[in-house]
Structures are given as structure tokens and as C-alpha cells.
């Protein structure tokens, strides 16, 4: 199978025992959601400042192929453990062939491709205030969050539900989408304040293991252009030269 990632050694057999892992995932999601709520409600009031311009550091970011290999190995280990528990010498399929089936090759690879495609932004621009943060991401929609009160911010649209808030010193965005798809972005600032890690986890109800991809960003100074611009409705973007002071 040509996955588009060069991975050709996916073991393909059938499995009928999908109900138990699905239950485990749902239970996991339940516990995970409850834990997230508890964490966010107990969050430390002192927040981290992510403000600034960030550019992706490819050398420090995850390699998609390596992460996919790691995920497949994990699935195989789990299948083997389950087979051992069942007293069978032969392991159940780690990955099946049916498109869209549970732990199918297309689903596993699709998950990795999704993680890769939604984390392509090379540049981030973060504006953060006391009660809100706005993360502009190149070539995609911005992630924004408000921090009023102790509860976390939830916005619902016909296409999904987004929840965000602080988990101690980390900023979390969780997007629940239809068809069993969910995406989580976890922003962590390095100790020096010059390095930003964005861990993106994609979960599908068709794959028993989430796929996480880390993108590392370094702070950079875009420099002064000498021009300050602001958007207006009737005159479009209005730019003025900045004073030298």
C-alpha cells in the first residue's frame, strides 16, 4: 500500500473485536474531558505570555514519518498484548485493510495526514491581553480564547465546538468536530521564552490511538517597517508612517 508517506509494511488482517476498544476510547474520552474540566477549573491564575512573532523550526519539529511509524508500532504492540490476554498465539490485526474501517490503513494514515495538514502554518503572530489571546496562524483561521472567570471558553457552531483555556502554564484548544473527529492544540512556552511548542493531537473514532505531532516555533523580531497600518471600512487599509520616536 502506498500511503503517500513511504510506509509499506502495514500488517493487514481482519479483526472482529472492535466493540471493546471503541468502549475503551469512549471511556477514555469521558475521563479525559472530565480531567480537562477539572484541570482548567483548578488552573493557576498566573498565565504565561505567548505574545510575539513565531516562525517554525523544522529541525526541532516532529518528523511525520517517524511519528507514523511510532504509532503503527504502538498499535501492533496493543494488538499483540490483546492477543496474549486472549491466550492466542496469533495477534489480532493491528491495522485492517477496509477503507474507513476501524484501525484501517486509510484511517491511520488519514489521521497522520490530517495532523500534518492542519499544522502547516510557518508563522504565528500572538496577541495576548489579560483576558484574551489571539493566535493568528498563517494560511488558516486564528485560534482565539477569552479567560474571564474560572471556567473555560466554549464556542459552538453548526460545524463543531471549540473549548479553550489554561491547563496550568499551557494553553489548550480542543475542537470537537462531527463524525468522531477531534483536534487538540496544546501551546507550551519554553523556559527561556524564545521557544514555543505546539502539540497537535488528532483523534478519530475510527482509530484506537490518537496521533500527536509537535511543531516547534522560535521567536523572531519582524523588524520595524516604519509604516503603521490599520483596517477601516470605508477607506480599506490606511497606513501612516511611524514617528521616529
Amino acid at each position: 500500500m502506498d500511503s503517500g508517506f513511504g510506509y509499506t509494511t502495514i500488517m493487514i488482517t481482519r479483526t472482529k473485536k472492535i466493540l471493546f476498544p471503541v468502549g475503551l476510547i469512549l471511556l477514555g474520552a469521558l475521563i479525559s474531558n472530565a480531567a480537562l474540566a477539572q484541570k482548567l477549573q483548578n488552573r493557576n491564575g498566573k498565565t504565561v505570555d505567548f505574545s510575539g512573532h513565531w516562525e517554525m523550526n523544522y529541525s526541532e519539529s516532529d518528523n511525520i514519518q517517524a511519528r507514523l511509524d511510532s504509532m503503527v508500532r504502538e498499535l501492533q504492540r496493543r494488538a499483540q498484548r490483546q492477543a496474549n490476554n486472549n491466550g492466542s498465539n496469533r495477534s489480532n490485526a493491528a491495522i485492517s485493510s477496509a477503507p474507513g474501517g476501524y484501525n484501517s490503513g486509510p484511517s491511520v494514515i488519514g489521521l497522520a495526514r490530517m495532523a500534518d495538514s492542519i499544522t502547516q502554518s510557518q508563522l504565528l503572530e500572538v496577541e495576548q491581553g489579560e483576558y484574551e489571546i489571539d493566535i493568528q496562524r498563517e494560511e488558516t483561521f486564528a485560534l482565539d480564547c477569552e479567560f474571564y472567570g474560572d471556567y473555560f471558553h466554549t464556542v459552538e457552531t453548526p460545524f463543531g465546538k471549540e473549548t479553550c483555556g489554561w491547563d496550568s502554564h499551557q494553553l489548550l484548544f480542543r475542537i470537537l468536530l462531527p463524525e468522531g473527529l477531534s483536534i487538540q492544540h496544546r501551546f507550551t512556552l519554553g523556559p527561556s521564552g524564545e521557544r514555543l511548542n505546539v502539540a497537535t493531537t488528532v483523534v478519530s473514532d475510527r482509530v484506537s490511538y490518537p496521533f500527536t505531532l509537535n511543531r516547534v516555533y522560535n521567536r523572531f523580531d519582524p523588524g520595524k517597517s516604519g509604516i503603521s497600518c490599520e483596517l477601516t471600512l470605508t477607506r480599506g487599509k490606511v497606513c501612516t508612517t511611524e514617528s521616529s520616536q
Partner: protein
Amino acid sequence: MKKLLLVLLTVALCGCTGSAPKKEPQGPEANQLWGEPLRSVALMLPPSEPEPHALLDIGLVIFDPGVPEDPVNNSKLGIFPEIRKAESRYQPYILRENLVKTQAWGAVRVLPRPDASAELQLSGKILHSDGSHLVLQVRAVDSTGQVWFDKVYHDEAVESDYPVIPGNDPYADMYRQISNDILSYSQQLSPAQFKQIREIALLQYAASLSPEAFDGFVSADAEGLLVVNRLPSQDDPMLERVQRIKNQEFLFIDNADEQYLELYDRMTPTYNLWRQNGRELAIYKVEYEARESSRDRDGRRGTYAAMQQTYNAYKRSKEHDQDLDELAQGFNNEVAPTVLEVQGKVFRLNGSLDSQYTEWRSILRSIFALETGLPPAAE
């Protein structure tokens, strides 16, 4: 087992994050909440030139912007506080223009704050405002405390309302309807009732300056409405002074009105564009949602194509919302300086008015004390 899984799925997906208010409704859902929108409304004029006694002065208080106290709900409800603040000063001015056009009233003034001694006071609250719908709650109450009406008005903009023709407004029907309702109510009043409204307004104003001198002239009846017990004599010098100070106050309020006119003139082109773009975005979003919900899936659930389709639908909806945010920012960049400037002037005027009131009241009390030998009223 399947039932257990269903329960787990339901709880896992919706149980832990709390409920989120949804953006305010559109279309039939909006009509269900606020009633049918107004149809075409013509401005009603009095059948004949009103008698001088019927020319009540109207105080039109700037509207309550209707911004929730908890700011966390603003973005969830699609409310832009700065725009609402500008609208709360802009909309009363349009209503004022309609009332003036009828020539059925005395002075119609936009007030920066409520005035208990207004002959007729109109107050309003913005319940919803965007390029597609305007919903206002408007209350009219006269100086006796009689509520003429307290009702919700809902108007819907249609495609032909945009681009807005200079001098027009997409919700002109609503302002005309409010004007018509006030006029209709006033036409049921007898000359004696008009007279009483005017007398009580003046006595209320006088009592606010010197409660001791004007105590007992007005009292509340069984229904809580104010009635005149007795009147000061026509040539009462104190009443003349009260009238003079009241005229002084009106001079200040007329000055404030000019600031609202300036705001109206400067804000109109930007505001009209904001509403037009906002409406187009809202329509596009509704159509997009309809298209997406009826569209065939790109692949089987769990495949990359299917996941991408799901994600892209969400992405587009987020981009729509953020386009609207950007429009709001553009609006604020253009109008906020004016609002602040006007606010500043009105606020300073308020301050002046308040301090002058205090001073006038103090002087009036002193004069009154000198003339009558009564002790001056407490501050």
C-alpha cells in the same frame, strides 16, 4: 453493551464543557423570538395642526446598548460592544428625526441620561442589531408616570435596503412605527390630560431644585400616577426662576444634541457599510451551512478525505466569524475616535450640567431661604 457505548459517547461529547450560548437567531427562528418583522410603514402625521397645549416636549434617552454584563458572553452572542455603544447613540438620533418630521411635538431632545421631569420620556434597549435584524425595546412614559407603551419592535432588512441611500436607513420602518405609536397614543389624550402632563413635568423639575418650596403640589394617586394637588400662582417668582433655569438646562442639552448629530453624520457611511457587509456575510454563512449539510460525503468516515471535509467546513465557518470580527475592528478603527470624542464632549457636558445643577440648586435654595426665611434645603 451498545446502549452503554451510546451513553458513554453522549456524555463524553457533551457532558464536560458546559453549555455555550449560541449566536442570536436568524430567519424564522428570529421571528419566533421577536415577532414578525414590520412591513412597510408610512410616517403618520397629525390630521391637523396640533394645538399648542398638545406640543409636548420629548426627552429621548440614549439607548441601553444591551451588552451583557458578563463580557464572556459577548463574542458567543455575536455582540460587538463598541459597535453597540455607537448604535445606542446613533439610533435615538434617527428616531428623533422622525418625531421632528411629524411636527406633532415641542422640542425633541436626545438626552445623555434619563430625566424624571421630561413631559414625555422615551427610553430604549437594543435587543439585537446587525445588518439583517434590528430589535428594540422601547418605553414611552409621561411625567405623570403613565406608561404609554412598552413594546418590542422587530424590523428586518431586505436586499433592496442595501447599499443604503443617503438619508435612508434599512430600519426606517421601525422608527416610523415608533413615531406612529406615540402619536396614536397622544391623540387619545384630552386637553386636560396634556395640561396635567405639562404641569407635573414643571412641578417635578421645580421640586428637584427645591423640594421644600414645591412640596405638596404633586402626589401619587391610588394607581401610583402623579396628580396635581394645587398649583403655584401664575406670577410666583420662584416658578419663574425655575422656568429660567430649566431653559438654561435645555441650552446645554441642545448643545449635546449637536454632538449626536455630528456622530450621526460621521458614522453613517461606515455604519451602513458595516451593516451591508455583515448581512452579506450572514447570508453567505447560512447558504454555506445549507450546502454543506446537503453535500455528499467525500469519503467513508475515518478516511482522510472525509476528515478533511469535516475540518474544512469548520475552518470556513471560523473564517466567516473572523471576517466579521475584522469588519468590526475596521468599524471601530474608523468610528471609535468619533464616539470617544463625542462621548468626551457629552460626558464633560454631563459633568458641567451636574455641577451647574448643583450650583443652581444651591443658589435657588439660598434665594428661596432669603425670600421665605425658611432654612435652606439639605444638599
